């Protein structure tokens, strides 16, 4: 009998002031956490495979770059106008560095950079270019197919929302 009452109380709680305050606190906390701290997103596309698969769900850890700048090799979440549509890319070069793709190899300041996260060969060639101040150069891990079909390049640090939680 007591168990039944407990179950009923769990699913149909009495709307007491204490319950309403608790519910309000939970809602506020959920809004703050999932709206501003750990924003959920679904991966649509294959540009970050094999590290991040199409259809996967993750969270953007918004405070990751609050006190530090992204490093080479970091995966970052890049915003467009707002945060409803974002890009997931890997930082391949930092501000002031010269970045180049030569026959499917990444060169930073003229030196070949090993990319262990690349699992399939690619044949991109892009002349050297310097990354502007307060910017980073990003690219996807899946570089199969013609370079023109891929979305990569340098972006302002102000567009980086954070990094994926895992």
């Amino acid at each position, binding site marked *: 009998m007591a168990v039944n009452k407990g179950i009923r109380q769990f699913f149909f709680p009495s709307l007491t002031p204490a319950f309403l305050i608790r519910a309000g606190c939970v809602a506020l906390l959920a809004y703050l956490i999932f709206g501003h701290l750990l924003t959920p997103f679904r991966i649509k596309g294959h540009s970050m495979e094999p590290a991040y698969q199409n259809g996967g769900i993750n969270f953007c850890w918004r405070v990751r770059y609050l006190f530090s700048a992204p490093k080479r090799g970091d995966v970052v979440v890049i915003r467009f*106008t707002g945060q409803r549509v974002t890009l997931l890319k890997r930082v391949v070069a930092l501000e002031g560095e010269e970045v180049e793709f030569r026959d499917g190899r990444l060169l930073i300041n003229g030196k070949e950079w090993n990319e262990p996260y690349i699992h399939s060969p690619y044949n991109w060639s892009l002349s050297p270019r310097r990354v502007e101040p307060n910017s980073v150069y990003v690219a996807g891990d899946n570089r199969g197919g013609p370079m023109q079909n891929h979305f990569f390049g340098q972006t302002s640090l102000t567009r980086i929302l954070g990094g994926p939680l895992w």
Partner: protein
Amino acid sequence: MVTLKYVLIALVLIAIGIGVSLTLFQSEEKRVKKQFYLLSEGVSKEPGENIFTMDQKIKKIGSLFDETCEINIPAHSVSGRLTRDEITGYAARGRLHSSELLLKFYDFDIAFPQQGEAKARLTARLTGKTTTGEAVNEAHEIDCLLKKIEKKWMFSHIEVVEVLKK
């Protein structure tokens, strides 16, 4: 007592005034957003769409633009001041190359810099399939200028903002 009564009436009138002006402002913003939803309907294409529907949609797209509109979409090699006929021509060709298309707009940021002008910055996402079976998955940040002509907001300038600069 009489003074308090007048103060209360004045406060109520001010609140009504603020409410009415806010409602009017919102409705203008909604009218601008409606033009984007109409554009989305016109561009979007379901598999097996018949010629009659296609014709209606192309006409709908044309009716949303000013007599000429400055368009700059480097990803699709569209640039310059185009007439309505040229715009509908581009739209028709683009739709013919696709078996299904879905255009959606997100994160609207609308401002009214002066009477009869609306500036909108938003994210556009285009998904679908080409007639050859290739997947279409694009997202762009877009700057738009709309002008109010005969009580209707018309697209006058559309430009894609470069989020990633190769």
